[in-house]
C-alpha cells in the first residue's frame, strides 16, 4: 500500500517540477529568439514566435506543453492541444530545429545510460571493498593508504582527473583513444573519470557504516555469544554497514545516468549532459524542462528502489 501511494504521489510531484522549471526558464534572462544574427525583417522573428507558440500567454504555453486544453482558431473552430507531456511528447527543440526533445533523449540516453551504469559498477566495485577493508584494518597501513585514496578520489574533480587520464593513457601510452564514443575502448577512460569520485564517496560511506556497526549492540551480543569474528563481520556486519551506501546509490545512479557535462566535453561523448547545458545557456525551454523531468523520474524511481531494497537488507525496517 505504502509503495502504491508513493507511486501515485509521483505524478503531482512531476507536474510541480515541470511547472517550476518551466517558469524558471522563462524568468531567466535571454530568450531563444535572440540571435547573434538578427533576421532581415522583424516579421521573421514574429513568424518564428508564432510557429513555436511563443506569442501566447505563459499559462497557455504551459498547458500546451502539458497537452491539456484547447484553443479556438481565427475561424472560431475548436482545437485540442496535440501531443504534450501527458502523451509522452516532450515538445520541440527551439535550437536544434530538426530534432524534437524526444529525438535528443532517444539519441543521448543510449549513450549516457551505459556510461552511467559502467561508472556505477566501477564506483561500487572499487568503493565497497575499499571501504570495508579500511574499516576492518583500522589504524593499520591498509587503512591509511585506502583512506588517502578515497579522499583523493573525492577531492580531485573530474575536470582534473579526465585530462590527466587522457594525457597519461591516451596520449603518452596510446592505450586508449582520446575521444569519441565508438568502441569499448572508448568507454574505459570516461568510465574511470566519471566513477572515481563516486568510488571515493562509496568507500567513505562504507567505512563509516562498518565502523558504526562494529560498535553496535547486536554485534557485541553476537560476539558475546561466541560467534566467530569473520562470520560476525561478513554475515551480519556488512548487511547493515552497506545501508548508507544503498541509500546513496539511488541519487548517485540518477546523477550518473543523466550524463555529466564535464566528462562528456572532455571525452566528446554524445550523452545528455551537453544538450542540457547548451539548452540552458541557449534558453531552449522544452529541452531543459524535458531533461529535468527525465532526471526527476529517474531520481524518484531509484529512490523507490532503494526503499524497497531496505526492506530486504535491514530487518528493522517495515513499511505500513
Amino acid at each position, binding site marked *: 500500500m505504502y509503495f502504491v501511494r508513493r507511486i501515485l504521489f509521483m505524478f503531482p510531484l512531476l507536474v510541480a517540477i515541470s511547472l517550476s522549471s518551466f517558469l524558471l526558464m522563462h524568468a531567466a*534572462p*535571454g*530568450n531563444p529568439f*535572440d540571435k*547573434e544574427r*538578427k*533576421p*532581415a*525583417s*522583424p*516579421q*521573421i522573428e514574429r513568424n518564428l514566435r508564432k*510557429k513555436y507558440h511563443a506569442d501566447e500567454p505563459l499559462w497557455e504555453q504551459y498547458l500546451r506543453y502539458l497537452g491539456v486544453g484547447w484553443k479556438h482558431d481565427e475561424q472560431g473552430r475548436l482545437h485540442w492541444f496535440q501531443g504534450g507531456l501527458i502523451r509522452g511528447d516532450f515538445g520541440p527543440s527551439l*535550437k*536544434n*530545429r*530538426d530534432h*524534437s526533445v524526444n529525438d*535528443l533523449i532517444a*539519441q*543521448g540516453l543510449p549513450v549516457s545510460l551505459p556510461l552511467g*551504469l*559502467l561508472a556505477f*559498477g566501477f564506483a*561500487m*566495485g572499487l568503493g*565497497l*571493498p*575499499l571501504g*570495508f*577493508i*579500511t574499516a*576492518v584494518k583500522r589504524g593499520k597501513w*591498509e587503512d591509511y*593508504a585506502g583512506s588517502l585514496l578515497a579522499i583523493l578520489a573525492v577531492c580531485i574533480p573530474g575536470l582534473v582527473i579526465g585530462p590527466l587520464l587522457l594525457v597519461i593513457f*591516451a*596520449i603518452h601510452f596510446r592505450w586508449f*583513444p*582520446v*575521444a*569519441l*564514443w*565508438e*568502441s*569499448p575502448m*572508448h*568507454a574505459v577512460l570516461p568510465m574511470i573519470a566519471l566513477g572515481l569520485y563516486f568510488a571515493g564517496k562509496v568507500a567513505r560511506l562504507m567505512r563509516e557504516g562498518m565502523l558504526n556497526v562494529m560498535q553496535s549492540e547486536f554485534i557485541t551480543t553476537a560476539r558475546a555469544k561466541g560467534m566467530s*569474528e569473520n562470520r560476525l563481520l*561478513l*554475515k551480519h556486519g*556488512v548487511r547493515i554497514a552497506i545501508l548508507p551506501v544503498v541509500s546513496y546509490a539511488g541519487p548517485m545512479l540518477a546523477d550518473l545516468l543523466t550524463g555529466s557535462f564535464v566528462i562528456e566535453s*572532455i571525452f*566528446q561523448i*554524445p*550523452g545528455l549532459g*551537453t544538450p542540457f547545458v*547548451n539548452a540552458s*545557456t*541557449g*534558453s531552449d525551454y522544452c529541452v531543459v524542462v524535458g531533461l529535468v523531468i527525465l532526471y526527476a523520474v529517474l531520481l524518484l524511481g531509484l529512490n523507490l528502489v532503494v526503499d524497497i531494497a531496505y526492506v530486504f537488507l535491514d530487518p528493522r525496517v517495515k513499511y505500513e
Partner: protein
Amino acid sequence: MNFKTKPRSKWRRGFRILIAPAQCPIRAVQLLFFAGSLLLLAGCTRNEPRADLVIVNGAEPQSLDPAIMTGEPDLRVVTSIFEGLTRLDPTNALPIPGLASNWDISADQKVYTFHMRTNLVWSTGEPLTADDVIYSWLRALNPETASDYAGQLYFLKNGEEYNTGVIKDPSLVGCKALDRYTVRAELKNPTAFFLDLCAFPTLLTVPRQTIEKYGDRWLSARPLPSSGPYELVAWRVNDKIRVRKNERYWDAANTKLGLVDFLAIASAPVALNLYETGAADVVWDKDLVPTELMDVLSKRPDFHSFSELGTYFVLMNTTRKPFDDPRVRQALALVVDKDRIIRKIIKQGGIPADSLTPPGLARYQSPKGLGYDPEKARRLLAEAGYPGGKGFPRVQYIFNAPAGGAAVPHEKIGVELQQMWHDELGIEVELRQLEWGTYLSAESHLDYDMGRASWIGDYNDADTFLNLYLSDNGNNRTGWKSEVYDKLLQSADEQLDPVAREKIFQKAEAMLIRDAVPIIPLYYYVGLNYFDDRKIKGIHNNVLDQHPVNFIWKVKTPPATGAVQSPGMATVQLIETR
C-alpha cells in the same frame, strides 16, 4: 580479523586494499559489478567502417535544413548534401555552374534566366526540375517556414513583401519556371552578387515530396533525397554526421571520396587530440585551434592560415551619453593599438583591422580608417568636454562568456582595451562578462555602453558588411542611424557599373570608420585549419572558408610505404559496390 595471506611482493599486497577478501559477500558484489561492466563495455561497440575522410567540423549543427540553418558548421555540411543553381569554386569561392549549366543576364541586370542541366535526378532517382528550385525558394520565403535567412531572397521582386505577409500570393514573387529546365529570376535591383546567393544555403534545392510528407522532421527521412554530391546516411547529435557519395549526382564522376564523417566538436583541445592520434584527418574551424598553442602550431607544415571575410570590432551605444558625441567615439577609436592586441593575444588568428570590410572582397577595396593617433584623440576628447578624461562617466564594456570550449579570448581583449583607454585618455572602463543570452539581449536592446561584436560575411561582396548599419537593420546594434548612409547604399544597389558602385560603398564606409564611428574595428579574421596537404588535396584556402567536400581527395599511399589499405577502407568499397 585475520585473513591468511601468503608472503607476497609489496605491490601485490598493495592491491589487496582494492579487492575484497574471499569470504566476504562484497567479493561477490564486486565480481558482479565487474562482470556487468565488461558486458556493458562489449555492448558499446558500434560496428561502423571508418570513413574515407574524417573532418572535425566545429560545433554541432543546429539544423541541416537549408532554409533554416544559420551557422558555419551547418553550412559546410548542408552544401555537400544540397545544391543550388550555382555552387562555389573551391579555389576562390566564386560562383560556378551547379544545377544550372549556364545563364543569361538582361541588360539592366535585373532578369536572370538559368538553363538547368537536363540530366538531373535526386539521389533517390526522381527527376529534379525547375519546379523544385522554385518550390525551394518560395518555401524559404513562406512566412510559415520562419526562415532566419529569408532576407537572402529579398533581392527577388516581391520577395520581401511575400515573406512579411504584405502579399499572400506566392505567384507574384519574381521567380518562375519557364519550362522543365528554365528558371527565370526577376530582381528588385541589379544585384552584383546574385550568382553568389544562388549557391547560398537558403537558395539550395530541397526535396518537395519528402518535406510535404514529413513536415518539420523531414531530415529524419531515410533515404533522404539529396540534390548535392553527397547523401545523408546518419546524423547523431553532438557526435557525427555521416554522408555517402551520391552516385546519381550530375558530377558524380568527379566525387573522389565515398564516406565522409563530420564530427561535431566545439572544443579545441579535443579536436587537436583527435587529429594528433590520427582519429581525424582534417580540422577546419578557426575556433578549433587552441590559442595557447598558436605559436607552436603555426610553425608546422600541416597548419594553414588564410584571410577570411570576417571582422572583430567594438560597438558603441550612440544613444547614450557620452557616446552620442562622434568626437568621443573617434577619440576612443584613435587610441586603440590594434597591433598590440594581435601581438599579445590573437597572434596568427587575426590581422589588425582599420575598416569594417576585410581585405579580399570581390569588387571592393576599403577606404583608410582613422589609424592610431593618441595626440589627436586627447584633443578631440577635450573638445567634447572631457579634457584628460575629467568628468567622463564610468562606463562598461560588455562581452560574452566563452562557451563550448571555443577559444576566443574576449576577456583578454577587453583588458587590453581597458588599459589603452585608461592610459591614453584617462577614462575608466569597467569590464563585464555576460552569459551569451544576456549579452545578445543587452546589445540588441541597446542596454549597454560599449561591447564586443563580430561579423562574418555571407557572400563575397562588401554589401554583406555595409548593410549592417542601415537604419532598419536588426543587426545594427549601435543605435546609429543616418539617412545619408541609407541613401548611399540604396544608390549602390541600383548602380550597374562596378567601379561606380565601389566608389559609393567607399564613401559609405568612410562614414562608418572615419566620421561617425559607431564601431571600432579591431582585427580581421584569419581562417585556420590543419591537415596534411601531402595526403589530402583539394582543400583550398578561400575567403569564405568553404571547402566543398566533393573536390577533396586523398593521395593514394604508395605501395612501398603504405602497403595494404586499412580494413575500414576495404569495407567501404564493399558497401559501395553492393
